[in-house]
C-alpha cells in the first residue's frame, strides 16, 4: 500500500485520537476567539430586547438532555435576558426526556433572579403528542395544560389570569433538537400566525433557512455558534463563547484530515489510471 492509499485508509482511531487532543488542549489552555454575530440571531435578540416589562414570551424548551451541549446555552441566555428585563415567561417542555432538565434550568435561574412561579413565570411541563399540544394551546393553554408542572391550576396563577392562548403572548421562541420545530412552524405559525423564532441544533440548521427566507420564522439560532452569538449580544453567560475556541481547533484538524483524505483519493486514482 503506497503513501496515498495509506492516507486514504487511515485507521479511524487515529482520527479520533487527534480530534480528541484538539478538543482537550483548548480545555486545558483556554483562549478566546472573536464571535461574529449574524443577522438571524440579532433579529431574535432585538425582538426580546424590544419587549416591555410585563410582556409575555413563550419559551418552548423542546430538546432532550443529549442536545444540551448545543442548545442549552441558548435557552439560558434567553431566560436570563427575559428575567433581567422583567419579561414574563410561559415555558413548555414538549420533548419526552426534557421536563426534568428544563425544571432544573428554571429553578436555577429563578433563584438567581428572585423570580416566583406563577407570578414571573409559568412552567407548563410536558404532555405527550406535541402536535396536538401545540394546536390545543392555540385555543387555550388550559386545554393541554389544566395545571402547571407543579400541579397548580393555571387559573389560580396570577400571571395566567386573562392569558388564554398565543394571542396573549408577544413571541414564541422554540428551542429544539428534533422535529417539534416543524410542528411549531406548521401549526403554530401556519394555523395561529404565531410570531416564531427557533433555536436548533447544528444538524437541523440548514433546513430552516428556507423558512427564514420566506418570513415564516423571523430568527434562527443554529447550534453552539448561534448560542455563542446570542451570548455576545445579550451578555448573559459565556459558556458557548468559551466553547468556540474548542470548535475552532477541532474544525481546523478536521479540515486538514479532509484535505489529506482527498489528496490520497485523487492521487491513488491518478496512479490507478496510469
Amino acid at each position, binding site marked *: 500500500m503506497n503513501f496515498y492509499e495509506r492516507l486514504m485508509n487511515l485507521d479511524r*482511531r487515529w482520527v*479520533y485520537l487527534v*480530534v*480528541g487532543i484538539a*478538543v*482537550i488542549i483548548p*480545555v*486545558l489552555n483556554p483562549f478566546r476567539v472573536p464571535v461574529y454575530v449574524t443577522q438571524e440571531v440579532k433579529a431574535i435578540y432585538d425582538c426580546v430586547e424590544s419587549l416591555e416589562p410585563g410582556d409575555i414570551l413563550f419559551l418552548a424548551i423542546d430538546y432532550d438532555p*443529549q442536545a*444540551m*451541549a*448545543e442548545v442549552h446555552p441558548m435557552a439560558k441566555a434567553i431566560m436570563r435576558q427575559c428575567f433581567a428585563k422583567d419579561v414574563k415567561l410561559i415555558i413548555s417542555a414538549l420533548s*419526552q*426526556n426534557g*421536563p426534568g432538565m428544563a425544571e432544573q434550568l428554571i429553578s436555577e435561574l429563578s433563584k438567581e433572579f428572585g423570580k416566583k412561579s406563577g407570578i414571573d413565570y409559568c412552567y407548563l*411541563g*410536558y*404532555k*405527550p403528542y406535541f*402536535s396536538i399540544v401545540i*394546536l390545543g394551546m392555540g385555543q387555550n393553554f388550559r386545554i393541554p395544560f*389544566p*395545571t402547571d408542572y407543579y400541579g397548580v391550576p393555571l387559573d389560580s396563577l396570577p400571571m395566567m389570569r386573562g392569558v388564554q392562548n398565543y394571542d396573549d403572548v408577544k413571541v414564541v421562541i422554540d428551542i429544539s433538537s428534533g422535529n417539534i420545530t416543524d410542528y411549531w*412552524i*406548521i*401549526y403554530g*405559525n*401556519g*394555523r395561529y400566525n404565531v410570531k416564531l423564532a427557533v433555536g436548533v*441544533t*447544528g*444538524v437541523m*440548521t*440548514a*433546513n430552516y433557512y*428556507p423558512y427564514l*427566507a*420566506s*418570513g*415564516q420564522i423571523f430568527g434562527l439560532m*443554529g*447550534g*453552539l*455558534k448561534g448560542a455563542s452569538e446570542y451570548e455576545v449580544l445579550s451578555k448573559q453567560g459565556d459558556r458557548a463563547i468559551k*466553547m468556540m475556541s*474548542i*470548535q475552532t481547533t*477541532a*474544525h481546523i484538524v*478536521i479540515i486538514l484530515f479532509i484535505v489529506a483524505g482527498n489528496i490520497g483519493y485523487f492521487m491513488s486514482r491518478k496512479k490507478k489510471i496510469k
Partner: protein
Amino acid sequence: MDLGTIIWNTVALFLTLCIFSFLYKDNPFYKFAEHLVVGVSAGYFAIILYFNGFLPKVWEPVTQRGEWWYLLPTILGMMTWARFSKKWSWISRFAIAFYMGIAVGVAIPLEMQQRVIKQLHATMLPVHFTNIQGVWNLLIMLGVLCGLIYFFFSMGHKGVVGGAARLGIWILMIGFGAGFGLTVMGRISLLADRITEIHNWYLMVTKALWGF
C-alpha cells in the same frame, strides 16, 4: 460540593468513558452502558407517560371531576391495543381510522400552506444582473428547478432533462455539504461538552480531596 454530587458526577464520568470505549472496540463496559440506557429510558418514558398522560388526561378527569366523556377517547385508545390479537385486531381499525382522519384533515392543508405555497411565493424572485441580489435570485431559481427535475420520475434522465437532473444533484450535494459541516460543528460541541465535564470532575475531586 456535597458527597452526593461527587458520587453522581463520578457515575456520569464512568458511563461517559464506558461509551467512549466503543471508539476502540466493543467491550463489556460499552455493553453495560448500552443496556443501562435502554432500560432507564424505557422506565423513564413509562413513568412520564403515566404521570403526564394517563393521570391528568384519564384518571383525574373521570374519577375526581366526574368528566365521564374522557372515557370515550380512552376507549378509542384501548381499541388500538386490539392490534396485538389476531382474532380481535379488526377492532383497532376504527380507532386508527378516527385518528388518521383527524390527523390528515388537520395536517394536510397546513402542510400544503406552510411547506409548499408560502415557499412557492417566496421563491418567485426577480432575476436581473443589476446587483448581486439578482444573481443570487437566479441561482436560487436554478437550484429549485433543477432539484425538482431530479425528483421527476415520469421521465428518464436523458438529454436536457438528464443534464438538468445532474445539475440538480450537484446542487443537492452542495447543500448536503453545508448540512454536513453544520453537523460536524454540532458533534464537536457535544464532544467538547463531555470533555469539559470530565475536566470539571477532575477539578471538583482534586478540590474535595486536596482543597485546591
